[in-house]
């Protein structure tokens, strides 16, 4: 189980980087860069710039998000920041403030 979980009472002020999935139930301030998926759960609070492959957000995120694959904003999430990703899903009930950049590849 190479699964990283940042529990709900944990506060990290700094940088997180790695090559595996990361689940955040607590608070992370600073910067997150992953090569896999990031899950910000309902209790999770992230005040950080995020660089990853996939992100699923059910909690709160303040910061810019850059995903190489997909960003998913789930119901009840609160996201403030710019999102850059080829695929972006925003669920009904999600609140989001910021720019979306899907960086459409030149298909013409």
């Amino acid at each position, binding site marked *: 189980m190479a699964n*990283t979980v940042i529990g709900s009472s*944990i506060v990290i002020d*700094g*940088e997180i980087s790695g090559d595996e999935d990361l*689940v955040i139930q607590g608070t992370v301030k600073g910067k997150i860069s992953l090569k896999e998926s990031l*899950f910000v759960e309902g209790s999770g609070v992230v005040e950080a710039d995020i660089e990853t492959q996939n992100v699923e957000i059910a909690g709160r995120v303040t910061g810019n998000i850059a995903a190489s694959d997909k960003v998913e904003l789930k119901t009840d999430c609160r996201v403030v920041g710019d999102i850059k990703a080829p695929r972006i899903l925003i669920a009904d009930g999600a609140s989001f403030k910021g720019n979306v950049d899907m960086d459409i590849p030149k298909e013409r």
Partner: protein
Amino acid sequence: MATAKELAPGAVNNTVVGQSILISGKLTGDEDLTVRGRVEGELTLSRTLIVEPTGVVKANVAVKNAIVSGVVVGNINATESVELTREGRMVGDIHAPRVIIVDGASFRGRVDMGEVEPGRMPSDRSALPRPTGATVRPAVRPGAAPARPALPGARPTPPAAPAAQARPAAAPARPAPPPAPAATRPAPPAPPAARTAEPTRPEPPRPPVAAPVPPTVAEAARKKVVVKKKGR
């Protein structure tokens, strides 16, 4: 893997830093933390830190308990215990009431279990000085002011001191200043003289101190001055 994620919200005390993860900065929390990857910076938990064999913690750590099977570089301050298992490697200082180092573990640094100092080891003897020391302490404050003029008196008084120690009950009964300074440091009369000499030196210019005081003290004072010069 999916089950782990599902379980995680319920199992609150379950923070894991996976093998490929690097966290650098400040980490605080009220739950157990298992480190399989790397944490650098500062780590504060009100519960247990578990550093697994693949884990590396390069941080100053404040926790309740720490179990180290991996690598820790930095100081660990634990309110309960620190255990280095057979795979544990640590460089840094440990401050904890309970410290366990298992055969196979390697460690370089200081261990401070607090409470018991080497002074307590001859337990019978230390039992006496401690209470007297306690009674002396309050006496020092009122006695501190007279201590300087009492300088010449320091030598004749020592006989009174053991009497005060012999009856610790009498000491608190009489917090009167005159016996107090003698009681504070009964055994070595010289060191207190040195301390009292310190403040006297800067106050007046050098020789006037000697004039009103017996010549022996003046000699002593000079000697002390010389010593200080050497020291500097």
